[in-house]
């Protein structure tokens, strides 16, 4: 049985259809990377998995439990087994790094303050953020915030991790750092994960399978090797990073010829 089972999932906001009949299965310990252009519904997919949105049709099941059919208390039980890493980290800005990471532990685990401290330090060490526990989110850079967000997500030892564009807006070096952390978490914790990213380099490093969402539909979900040679023109255009092709709905501006350097 798949740990995460997305069945015929459709979601629209007013007249705009964001997801249309999306089907995805993620097996235990598997790392699925979801690619797609901006505004194609990747984040909406994660929010449906977390139960932050309700599907218009279809359903999402986590470990066999259909999310939309759960009571509030049952949903909170399921959420304790899922760690969500937000695109902009979504750290509680009135709390320190320590309090952010300790938040779930203090609310859901019967732990002494010493045990909480030890677990927070362990989580911060895993993401390379040791020694920052007394800082406030406003004192952190974008990459540091993401890493603290990771630490907060793994604090409760979840079985599933969801990463929403963890590298967007970061420099290439920090992007590589984040990619390595995700890879380390995958190997050290062996958890099931879904990562949404635009960064192809880290996508191919992290993924056991890669899915591409195009205009609300999942047009491919296969191993990185198969994905690379998939002849679908949208996939090939996405891999090339070329503006010309079927990917964009509106035609891109024409390419300017580069001026030849004077001899």
């Amino acid at each position, binding site marked *: 049985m798949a740990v995460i089972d997305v069945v015929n999932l459709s979601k629209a906001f007013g007249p705009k259809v964001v997801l249309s009949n999306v089907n995805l299965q993620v097996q235990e310990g598997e790392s699925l990377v979801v690619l797609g252009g901006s505004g194609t519904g990747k984040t909406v997919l994660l*929010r449906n998995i*977390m*139960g*932050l949105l309700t599907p218009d049709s279809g359903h999402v099941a986590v470990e066999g439990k259909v999310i939309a059919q759960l009571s*509030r208390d049952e949903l*909170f*039980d399921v*959420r*304790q087994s*899922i*760690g*969500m890493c*937000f*695109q*902009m980290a*979504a*750290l*509680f*800005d009135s709390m320190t790094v320590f309090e952010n990471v300790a*938040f*779930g532990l203090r*609310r*859901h685990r019967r732990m002494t303050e010493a045990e909480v401290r030890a677990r927070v330090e362990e989580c911060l060490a895993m993401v390379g953020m040791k020694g920052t526990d007394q800082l406030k989110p406003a004192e952190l850079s974008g990459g540091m915030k993401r890493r603290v967000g990771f630490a*907060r997500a793994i604090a*409760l030892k979840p079985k599933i991790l969801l990463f929403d564009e963890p590298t967007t807006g970061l420099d290439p070096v920090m992007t590589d750092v984040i990619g390595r952390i995700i890879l380390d978490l995958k190997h050290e914790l062996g958890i099931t994960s879904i990562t949404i990213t635009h960064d192809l380099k880290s996508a191919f490093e992290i993924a056991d399978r890669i899915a591409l969402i195009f205009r609300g539909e999942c047009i491919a979900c296969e191993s990185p090797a198969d994905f690379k040679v998939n002849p679908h023109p949208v996939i090939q255009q996405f891999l090339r990073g070329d503006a010309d092709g079927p990917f964009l709905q509106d035609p891109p501006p024409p390419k300017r010829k580069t001026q030849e350097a004077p001899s």
Partner: protein
Amino acid sequence: MVLTLFDKAGAGVLKATDTFGDFAVLAGRTFAAIFKRPFDGKNLLFQFQSVGVNSIPVVVLTSLAVSMVFAVQLAFGFKQFQAEGLASQVEGLAIMRELAPVITGLMLSGRIGSAMAAELGTMQVTEQIDALECLATDPIHYLFVPRLLASMVMVPILTVVSIYVGFWGGYLILVGVEGQSAYVYGNEFYKLLAFRDLRIALYKAFVFGMIIALVGCWKGYRTKGGAEGVGNAPTSSVVTSSLWILISDFFLTKLLLV
């Protein structure tokens, strides 16, 4: 033309019903969440400080100013009928029954209701409330309940502070400026008052506290649209809660004075 008018009126009624229903559901969920676990004492104490202790200066200053102005008006008015002695009695009645609870309620809707709306609104647009949900924490229980409890307890306490300050505001004018006897003022201030009047003031303050917290949290929780939404939430919260305070004051007065 007529159809369009009916259409617009219908849409307005539907929207108003929808808004009121949303508020009622969130308020109901908040009351239901009061007894849920885990109990977050630290968060509650922080709200007591934020709502209560930090509001003392503003309540003291406004109560002093209003009671002094009221005393000046009363002294001037009663002087026309050579009935200066009544000024302290009416001052006491007005402060206890109306001025203290309403001024405290209105000032706190501006100070803490707007702060709640702005704080929760910022949390909403920066996905912090979604993060709470993802950490298996009910935002209603974590954010609404401590603010509601703090307001329901602290607004009545601040109303008592306002009554006390109001007494001294009247004293400054009627004794210090108008030359009434301090002994007479002290006796006359309470002459028309009964314990029931203090009870009415506290009931009112309790309801105003509920209105301030629930409206502030609701407006913040329903914030949409980034910076503009966060900017509108406190304004909308202050206007809505002030209106509800004044309207409920009328009905509470009618109800409690019977």
